[in-house]
């Protein structure tokens, strides 16, 4: 593949409306390129999951959307505003769970910290905050520095949700949560989405933890998107084909799809192909392969296939 190779999967989500867009977004820290011409499109009301390995640029992207880092090139729009010059307004509309689980004012009690957030967000729903806190089982009299990583994360989720912002930016929100709390968090997020229409961007390298919530998927690697599409399209379009093939089979000359990953054994193949299911099946059959099974990939598997294909090139 050449340098100009574009993403393996589509990255254009059409005309929107979008809650968040970036065009050609670039950010460099010293000589390290964190974001490299990123075209993000987060449809309004969607739950968008950003998948990618550590260091892919997920956190830098989220911090850029918050107006916490300044970008060097490109254009950013968060709910119609550029965080670089209207940061205060942008942050007013965002509930943010930062990458760092430690809350800054560690000497405060949880209750005081919630009160602090309430002052800064006039739309703060104190009753909702109280219910969330109770559901998460966190005593408001606890000092923040005594909280465990998971408890700290829960407090951050309450801080992000309770002012019912139109946009949630959650950077590894399930980091540090045990199974039970993670399950509770998914339930809380489901209810939150049902009660207040919200656009959500979740960044994670463990997408299976939030998969049932996801509407759109963006796979990020080295500051670029490898694919950005609705989850159902990913389900329907990126498929794994198992087929039995004759000995010495060379594969079809041309296939109506893009082979993302292939693994061939002596008389059997397992290909991951982006393309129309019937056309790909026909193509394989015509080339002499007996397709035994076609199955969709989970978001996690899909991301893995894309990322490892990227590494292989």
């Amino acid at each position, binding site marked *: 593949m050449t340098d100009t190779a574009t993403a393996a999967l589509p990255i254009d989500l059409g005309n929107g409306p979008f809650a968040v867009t970036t065009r050609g977004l670039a950010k460099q820290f010293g000589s390290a390129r964190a974001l490299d011409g990123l075209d993000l499109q987060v449809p309004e009301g969607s739950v968008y999951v950003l998948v990618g390995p550590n260091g892919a640029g997920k956190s830098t992207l989220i911090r850029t959307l*918050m107006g916490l880092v300044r970008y060097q090139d490109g254009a950013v729009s968060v709910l119609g505003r550029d965080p670089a010059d209207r940061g205060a307004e942008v942050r*007013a509309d965002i509930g943010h769970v930062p990458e*760092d689980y430690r809350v800054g*004012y560690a000497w405060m009690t949880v209750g*005081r910290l919630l009160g602090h957030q309430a*002052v*800064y967000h006039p739309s703060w729903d104190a009753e909702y905050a109280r219910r969330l806190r109770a559901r998460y089982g966190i005593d408001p009299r606890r000092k923040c520095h005594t909280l465990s990583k998971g408890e700290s994360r829960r407090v951050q989720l309450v801080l992000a949700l309770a002012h019912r912002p*139109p946009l949630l930016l959650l950077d590894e929100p399930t980091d540090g949560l045990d199974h039970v709390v993670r399950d509770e968090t998914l339930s809380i997020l489901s209810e939150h989405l049902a009660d207040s229409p919200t656009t959500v961007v979740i960044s994670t390298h463990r997408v299976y933890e939030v998969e049932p919530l996801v509407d759109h998927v963006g796979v990020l690697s080295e500051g670029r998107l490898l694919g950005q599409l609705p989850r159902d399209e990913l389900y329907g379009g990126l498929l794994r084909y198992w087929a039995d093939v004759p000995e010495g089979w060379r594969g079809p000359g041309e296939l109506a799809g893009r082979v993302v990953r292939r693994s061939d054994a002596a008389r059997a193949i397992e290909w991951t192909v982006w393309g129309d299911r019937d056309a790909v099946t026909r193509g394989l059959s015509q080339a002499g392969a007996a397709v035994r099974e076609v199955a969709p990939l989970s978001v996690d598997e899909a991301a893995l296939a894309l990322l490892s294909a990227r590494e292989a090139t």
Partner: protein
Amino acid sequence: MTDSPASRIPAMKAVWGEQLRVVGLAIRREGALAALALALGSVALIAFSRMPVLQAMVDGEIGELVFDPGEPPWGFFGVLGALLLPLVVWKGERRFGDTPLWSMPVDHRRHALLKVAAGWVWLMAILGAALVWVTLTTLASGGSLGVDEVRLLVLDPAGVAAGTPGAVQSVNWTTPWWEWALPFTSATAAYLVASTLILATRRPLFWAAGLWVAGGVVLGIADFRDIDWMQRVSDFVAWYIGGDSFTRGMQLPTGGREVWTLLPSVKMWTASSAFWIGLGLVGVLAASRRARDR
């Protein structure tokens, strides 16, 4: 969702009030420690001055307390506290990371300035309380407020050693009114300069130490090589903490008495304070730009 953007932005008055509260919470432990130290000192002083038993124990070595706000120890404590205060004010803020302050829906620059201002308000309040406390302690221990003394002013430094008549002049000196304001201005200047370092640098203590050493070296050279203009500059620069720091230990023919090369003047104090406070303000404003540009 139907909220207009305006209703989601906090009122600046609310933010200001909250920052006053947050800074107050942040400094309460250190403040309590300082108050405790002050209280213990007062109790000890009053005890020694009022109880003959204790007086006898130290052979009357601890005399009566004279509280002259223009004199170095007093100004020095205020300045030291003001230099350290920003470390406590910015406690818990990851100034170069996702600090709570930067994540809030307030313009970064404005927010940084509000926090600096909130810290300053606390500094003035604490300083005021401390001055009242020391004043009361002084009165309670039977000491005196301000000084009323005769000072020896050196008019001709060269002539002093030679014993030339008229080289030294006696001046009647009473603590002037403005020396009571001096702790506030010197602390303000120190606080602003320290805040600049906290806002602008990742390692403020490192920078402070570096500047301190560099300043010391320059002054040392000036002193050693007798570079007159440099001494004048350093005198001017140091004036803000009080003209009383310009006593010089000089050997008089009549004995090692403390003499003065310059008596404190309101003009010098105003100029030096304005210089330092101005420098601090410019520094804080410039450093807060950096917060905006992160």
